[in-house]
């Protein structure tokens, strides 16, 4: 397979994955359907199933059409055209927007069946230690440190100028020199990403909010992700020593994509796709009045900083809490520093 075809396939893989998982976006919690609080057994009724089926069908069909258009553009456009680089990201955004619009349509259909359910929160009194998964996440700094040490020890074997980037045709178009930033840049970027993941894990498992036990269970996949990221940055850091070809790097990227998709699929499966069969564990305990456009939660009366999302998976901030803004600022600062470091 030539590098251009391989690069196209790699760009289309995440797109295909998102296209396939979109129909399940938005309703994985019992007691809430399309962002509307309903009785716990409502999701199992024929009306709810019908709205859910219609949403999944529409989202899947539109996403499939968008995927086909993106694939055609990608295949027909020249390898180095800026359009080819933008198409996957733009299509993902468009697919998410379409899913959101259909989700809002679903919410309108469900709203007449909304129910006033007590906002119940529960927790285990026996605290669960999170030290092990947090250490596992932070431990992914070790291979990065080992790579940095190896680069330092073999400093003289590193070429004075080495390839840093290739274009889609496999032609080198970016070089780095044997300098601190040129050699250790990827390792530092990897370390910062791992630190961000560790801080994120700490915040997820300690922030004030419901579903603490569920949040703590998310630490294991976070640790797995940290190790995947660290491994990837180790490979990138070792480029000047290993003299990797573009096709080898593409192969490594493909393996990583499959591993990340595998992890995501496992999470989707574990997160519960059928709101009808969810346990009370995943019950939402936020009032409908606190949600704006179904995705932003702002409730000054709620002390929780992290609350379960209503559209999508995972948790979101209660933007009425100052600590939510501080954490959001820290994430943006980290992202900005990563961009600067890579430049």
């Amino acid at each position, binding site marked *: 397979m030539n590098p251009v075809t391989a690069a196209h396939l790699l760009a289309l893989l995440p797109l295909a994955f998102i296209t396939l998982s979109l129909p399940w976006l938005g309703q994985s919690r019992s007691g809430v359907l399309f962002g509307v609080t309903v009785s716990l057994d409502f999701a199992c009724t024929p009306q709810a199933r019908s709205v859910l089926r219609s949403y999944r069908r529409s989202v899947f069909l539109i996403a499939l059409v968008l995927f086909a258009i993106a694939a055609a553009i990608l295949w027909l456009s020249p390898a180095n055209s800026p359009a080819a680089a933008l198409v996957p990201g733009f299509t993902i955004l468009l697919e998410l927007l379409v899913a959101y619009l259909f989700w809002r349509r679903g919410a309108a259909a469900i709203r007449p069946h909304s129910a006033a359910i*007590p*906002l*119940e*929160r*529960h*927790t*285990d*009194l*026996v*605290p*669960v*230690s999170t030290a*092990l*998964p947090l250490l596992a996440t932070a431990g992914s700094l070790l291979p990065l440190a080992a790579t940095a040490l190896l680069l330092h020890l073999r400093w003289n074997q590193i070429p004075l100028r080495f390839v840093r980037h290739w274009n889609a045709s496999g032609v080198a178009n970016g070089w780095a020199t044997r300098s601190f930033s040129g050699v250790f840049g990827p390792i530092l970027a990897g370390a910062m990403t791992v630190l961000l993941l560790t801080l994120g894990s700490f915040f997820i498992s*300690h*922030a*004030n*909010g*419901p579903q*603490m036990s569920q949040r703590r269970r998310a630490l*294991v996949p976070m640790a797995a992700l940290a190790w995947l990221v660290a491994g990837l940055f180790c490979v990138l850091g070792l480029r000047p020593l290993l003299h990797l070809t573009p096709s080898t790097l593409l192969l490594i990227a493909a393996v990583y994509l499959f591993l990340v998709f595998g992890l995501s699929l496992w999470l989707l499966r574990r997160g519960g796709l059928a709101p009808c069969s969810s346990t009370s564990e995943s019950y939402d*305990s936020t*009032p409908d009045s606190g949600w704006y456009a179904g995705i932003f939660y702002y409730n000054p009366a*709620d*002390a*929780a900083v992290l*609350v379960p999302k209503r559209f999508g998976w995972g948790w979101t901030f209660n933007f009425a809490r100052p600590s939510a803004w501080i954490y959001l600022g820290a994430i943006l600062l980290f992202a900005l520093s990563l961009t600067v470091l890579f430049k």
Partner: protein
Amino acid sequence: MQLPSSPSEKPESETPLLLLQFCILYAYNIQNMAPSLQIRVVLDSPTPVYRQVADALRSLCVGGRLAPGTKLPTVRQLAASLGIHFNTVAEAYRVLSDEGWLLIEGRRGATILDRQLPRKPNATAQAAASSRLRHLIAELQAKGLSPDWIRHETKAALESKLP
């Protein structure tokens, strides 16, 4: 026919890795296998949340599920797990401390005290309890629950020592 290989035939190099995997999984699972003692609060209930927390903890103490010497989470830990303000939990702990159920140890959390023998209630406490009970019965009757049902449930709760 080939017999399945015995564990001893497994290559030796894999054994430490398998042992390590087992230890990691065991260590992680053992943390999640702790006996479940749950407390629940209803945020939009007419009963204040601090009272719900205090009631839930007291019920666990009376029922013997929270034995004397048991360490409770710190105020901040419990508040974070429930998604409520830490002052709410602090108030609940204070109520239980005043009743003699808890020893508050600052940042180290709180410990359940040995309080199996009921203190001799004073007249004021008896009057307050009587008033609270009457209000509760009136509230339950207003919700359509029959006196027979209330009597039966009260008896069952007293006998089981659980809510």
